[in-house]
C-alpha cells in the first residue's frame, strides 16, 4: 500500500486500538472489583473479551501487513497469534475448570500487545516470541500440575536451593556479558538468563519454609540461601534481579511471620548495601546520575532514558499510529524499553491501560491467595504475584524516570525466552492455587458432610 494511504489508515486506526485496549481494561476492572467484593468465587462469564482481544490483534496485524508492500506473512502471523491464543485459552479452560479466566485474558492481552509491537519492530523476533509464548504456555501447564498434584513440594527444598545456587555460580563462572550485566549463559544456540529461573525457585523455597512456624535459628538455611542468591546476582551486576529477590523475600517473610524486626533489618541492610554499591561501583553511579538528570549528559549516560522520554512525549495520548513513529531510535526498544515504543506508537492511554492491567493481575493474584485453603498455597500465590508486580513496576518506573533504571524485562511483553517462560511459570503458580481453591469450593458440601463424620469419630 502506498505510504500516504497507509499513514491515513494508521492515523485513524490508533483510536480503535486505544478503544479496544481500554475496553478490555475496564471489563477486567469491573470483574476484579466483583471478584474482590464477593466471597464465593462465582463462575463468571468473560463475555466478549476473548472476541475483542482477537479483533484487536487481527486488525493490528492486518494494518501492519499493509505497510509498504502487502505482506502475506504478517497476515499469517496475525492468524497464528490469534489461533495460538485461542487454543491456549480454551485448552486451559477445558482442562481446568477452576482457572481464573480473566487473569488469563489480561496476561494474553499483554502478550498480544508485545507481539504487535515486536512485529512492527522486527518481524523475525515476533515469530520467535510466539514460539516462546507456546513454550511458556506448556511451562504454565507444568507449574499448574506441579502445584495442583504434587502435595509434598516442600520436601524438594534443599535440592532446589542447590540447583539455584549452582546455576548462579555457573553463570558467574562461564556466563556471557550482555548489556552491562554478566547474567547470561549459552545453552546450545540460546542465551538463557538463569537469574530469571531462580525467581521461581525462590518462590517455592521461601513458601515451603515460611508456611510452618519455626524459631529464627531454624530458618537460617533459607535466610543464608536468600542472602547468597542476592549476593551472586549483585556480583553479576544484575541489580534488577537483586532488587526483585530482595522484595520477594521481605514481602513473603513479613506476610508469613509478621516479624517486623527481620523485615526492617533486611531493609536497612539493603539500604546500606545500596549506599555502599553506589560508592563502590561505577555502573551504579551512572544509573543514578542518568535517573537524576538524563538531560545533563544526553549523549552518553542519559541517552537511553532521554530517548525513552522523547519517544513517549512524541506519541502523546493516543500515539503516532502503528508504524508511523521511530521507535528504533530508542535503545533496547524490543526488550527493556518496549514500554516506551508502545507509548510512542499506540499512545500514553495504552501505556496507562498496560499499567492498569498489571495492577489488576496483581489484585487478582492477591485475591486468589486470600481464598487459598492452606498457608503454603497462600504464600506460593503471593510470592508469584509479588514477583510479577514488583518486576513490572520496576521496569515501567525506570522507563518513565520515576525510579532509577534497572535492567529487568517487562513480564509477558518484552522480547525474551527466559522472561516469557518464567513469567508464565509464575502465572502457573497463581493459577494452580486458583484451581485448588475452586475445586475445594465445588467439593464444599461434601466436605462439610465429612467433617461431621470426623467429629463423631473423635467422640467415639
Amino acid at each position, binding site marked *: 500500500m502506498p505510504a*500516504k494511504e497507509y*499513514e*491515513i489508515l494508521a*492515523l*485513524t486506526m490508533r483510536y480503535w486500538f486505544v478503544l479496544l485496549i481500554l475496553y478490555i481494561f475496564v471489563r477486567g476492572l469491573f470483574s476484579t472489583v466483583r471478584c474482590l467484593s464477593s466471597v464465593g468465587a462465582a463462575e463468571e462469564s468473560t463475555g466478549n473479551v476473548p472476541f475483542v482481544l482477537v479483533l484487536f490483534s487481527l486488525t493490528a496485524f492486518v494494518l501492519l501487513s499493509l505497510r509498504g508492500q502487502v505482506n502475506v506473512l504478517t497476515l499469517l502471523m496475525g492468524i497464528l497469534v490469534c489461533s495460538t491464543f485461542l487454543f491456549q485459552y480454551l485448552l486451559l479452560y477445558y482442562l481446568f475448570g477452576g482457572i481464573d479466566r480473566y487473569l488469563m485474558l489480561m496476561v494474553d492481552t499483554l502478550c498480544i500487545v508485545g507481539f504487535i509491537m515486536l512485529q512492527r519492530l522486527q518481524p523475525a523476533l515476533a515469530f520467535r516470541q510466539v514460539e516462546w509464548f507456546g513454550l511458556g504456555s506448556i511451562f504454565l501447564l507444568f507449574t499448574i500440575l506441579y502445584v495442583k498434584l504434587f502435595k509434598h513440594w516442600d520436601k524438594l527444598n534443599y535440592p532446589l536451593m542447590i540447583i539455584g545456587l549452582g546455576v548462579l555460580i555457573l553463570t558467574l563462572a562461564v556466563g556471557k556479558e550482555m548489556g552491562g550485566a554478566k547474567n547470561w549463559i549459552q545453552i546450545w544456540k540460546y542465551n538463557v538468563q538463569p537469574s530469571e529461573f531462580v525467581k521461581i525457585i525462590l518462590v517455592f523455597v521461601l513458601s515451603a519454609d*515460611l*508456611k*510452618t*512456624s*519455626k524459631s529464627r535459628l531454624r530458618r537460617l538455611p533459607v535466610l543464608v540461601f536468600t542472602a547468597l542468591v542476592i549476593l551472586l546476582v549483585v556480583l553479576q551486576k544484575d541489580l534488577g534481579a537483586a532488587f526483585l529477590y530482595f522484595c520477594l523475600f521481605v*514481602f513473603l517473610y*513479613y*506476610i*508469613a*511471620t*509478621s516479624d517486623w524486626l527481620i523485615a526492617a533489618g533486611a531493609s536497612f541492610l539493603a539500604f546500606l548495601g545500596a549506599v555502599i554499591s553506589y560508592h563502590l561501583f561505577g555502573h551504579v553511579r551512572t544509573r543514578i546520575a542518568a535517573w537524576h538528570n538524563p*538531560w545533563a549528559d*544526553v549523549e552518553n549516560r542519559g541517552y537511553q532514558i*532521554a*530517548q525513552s*522520554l*522523547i519517544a*513517549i*512525549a*512524541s506519541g*502523546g495520548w493516543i500515539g503516532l499510529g502503528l508504524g508511523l*513513529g*521511530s521507535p528504533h*531510535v530508542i535503545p533496547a526498544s524490543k526488550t527493556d524499553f518496549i514500554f516506551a515504543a508502545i507509548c510512542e506508537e499506540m499512545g*500514553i492511554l495504552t*501505556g*496507562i491501560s498496560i*499499567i*492498569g492491567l*498489571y*495492577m489488576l493481575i*496483581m*489484585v487478582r493474584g*492477591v485475591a486468589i*491467595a*486470600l481464598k487459598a485453603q*492452606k*498457608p*503454603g498455597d*497462600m*504464600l506460593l500465590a*503471593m510470592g508469584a504475584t*509479588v514477583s510479577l*508486580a514488583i518486576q513490572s*513496576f520496576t521496569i*515501567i*518506573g525506570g522507563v*518513565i*524516570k*520515576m525510579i532509577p533504571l534497572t535492567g529487568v524485562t517487562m513480564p509477558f511483553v518484552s522480547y525474551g525466552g527466559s522472561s516469557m517462560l518464567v513469567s508464565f511459570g509464575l502465572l502457573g503458580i497463581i493459577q494452580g492455587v486458583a484451581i485448588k481453591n475452586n475445586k475445594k469450593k465445588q467439593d464444599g458440601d461434601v466436605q462439610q458432610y465429612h467433617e461431621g463424620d470426623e467429629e463423631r469419630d473423635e467422640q467415639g
Partner: protein
Amino acid sequence: MYNSTMKEMKNAMSKGKIKRNTIGVLLVLTALYLSLIAYFCYAVLFYGSRWFADSYNTRVKMDEKNPRIIPGSIMDRNGVMLAETKSELVKDSTTGKEEQYYFRVYHDKATSVAHVVGFNHSKYGRMGVEAFYIYYLMGYNNSLIEKIYQKAFLPQERGNDVVLTVDFRLQDYVSQLMRKQGKKGSVVLLNPKTGEILTMVSYPTFNPNDMDKVDDDSLVNRATQGLYPPGSVFKLVTAAAALENVEDIGERKFNCAGAVEFDGTKIQCYKGEAHGELDLAQAMAVSCNTTFASLGTEIGWKNLLIMGKKFGFNEDFLFSDIRMKMSSLPITYKTRKQEMAWTAVGQGKVLVTPLHMAMIAATIANDGVMMEPKLLYSVVGRNDNIQKQLKPNVYRKVLDKENAETLKNMMAKVVLEGTGKQAQSKGVTIAGKTGTAEEGSKDQPNKNLAWFVGFAPSDDPTLAIAVLLEDVGQGETGGTQAAPLAKKVIEKAVELGY
C-alpha cells in the same frame, strides 16, 4: 498419618495473620501502581512538551532531501518573515543528478533575532523558537481531519506558521545599539500587563544563515540562560520583603555612615560615601548599601526567602512559551549574618537571569501581579486558520497593590533624583533601579556588571525592561552604562506605539 497431619496443622502459620498481612501487601502494591500512573500523567502533562522539543528528538529533525513535513514559517508580530523553508534544485556531485534540497532561510538581518528564533539545521540541530515550537512548526498540533486532508490532497505536507510577540523593528534597533556599545549583555523588554516579550536581545550574536562560523559563546541566549549576580537591583526584592514584614517602615529613618560591619566584613556604600540620615525611598534612590544590608539582617533569611520565592527565585519555571534557567537565592537557616547582609544588596550567592529581572520589574509595574512571559503570539495553519492565540496568563500574585505602589514610587524617585538620572527622558516618564554587581577580582577590574531594570510610563506602565551589560570597567555603573541604553530602548518603543 493422623498424628502427623495434626502436627502439621499445629505448626502451620496462622491463616488469619497471613490474610491480614496479605491485605496490607495488597494495599502497598496498589499504592505503588497508583503512584506510577499518577507520576506518569504528571510527568507527561508538565514535561511532555519539553521532552518533545528536545533537540535530540530525531523525529522532527530537518530532513534536507526527503522531508516528511515541511516546517512552517516564523514571523514577528507584524508579519515580518523571520524564518522559512525554501527548496532548491542542487546537482549531486557524485551522481550528477539534480535533486531537490530543503533548508531553512532566515531574515537578512537575522543576527538581530538570532537568539529568539534560533536555528533548525540538519547538521547543527535546533535552538530557540525553532526548537521549542517545533511541535507547531511541524504541524503536530493539527487535528486528525487536517492531517488526513494534507496527506490525501496536498502534494507535500506542511507544518504551521508561528507568529512571535517580538517586534522586529525594535529587536533590530536594540541589537544595533548593543553592537555599538560593544559589550556583552542582554536587553529584555516586555509588556507588564500581558507578559508579551517585545524584545529579547543577547549580545554577542550569530548568523543562523551561516552556521559554520559560530562560536559557542555567542550561541548562549544570555537573556534566558545567563545567570548573573543582580547587585543593587535585588534591593527591590529586599525592599518588598521589608514592606511586608517590618512595621512602620514608611516612617523609619536610617543612618548611613558610609560603611557597616558584620562579623568582621565591611559593607561599603559606593565609593564609601556616607549618605547620612535617610528613609527607605531615599535609600533606594541613592542605592545605599549599608541601609539595605542592615535591613536584610533585620528581616532575616526566612522572610527574604519567602519574598524571593514569591518573585520566582529557586523556581523551575515551566512556562509554556519559553525555557529559562532557574534563578537562585541560596539562603537557609544556616546562612550567617554577613552572608545575609551581602545577599540583601544582591551580592552574595544570588543569581538571576535578565528575563527574570525584567519579570520582577514588570510585577512591580503591574500592581504586584506577575504575568507569565509570552513569546508565542499565534499559530497559523493552512488558509490562515488561527489555531492558537495568545492568552495572557497570571503566573502569580506577588505583592499587594499598596506595596507595589510604594515600590513604584521609589523607582520613579531613583530616576528623578537618584542613581538612575541618566534614564530620564523628555517624552516619557521612566522609573527604574540601577545596579552594579561586582564580579571581577583585583586582577580583572573590568569584570563588573551594569544593570538597569524599570518600567514606563511610570503612572500607567505598558513597558518593563531589564538591561544587563557585562565587563564594564571601573568607575562605570549601571547608572552610567545601562540606564542610558534603557532610555533609548524605551523611547524607541514608545515611538513605535507600545
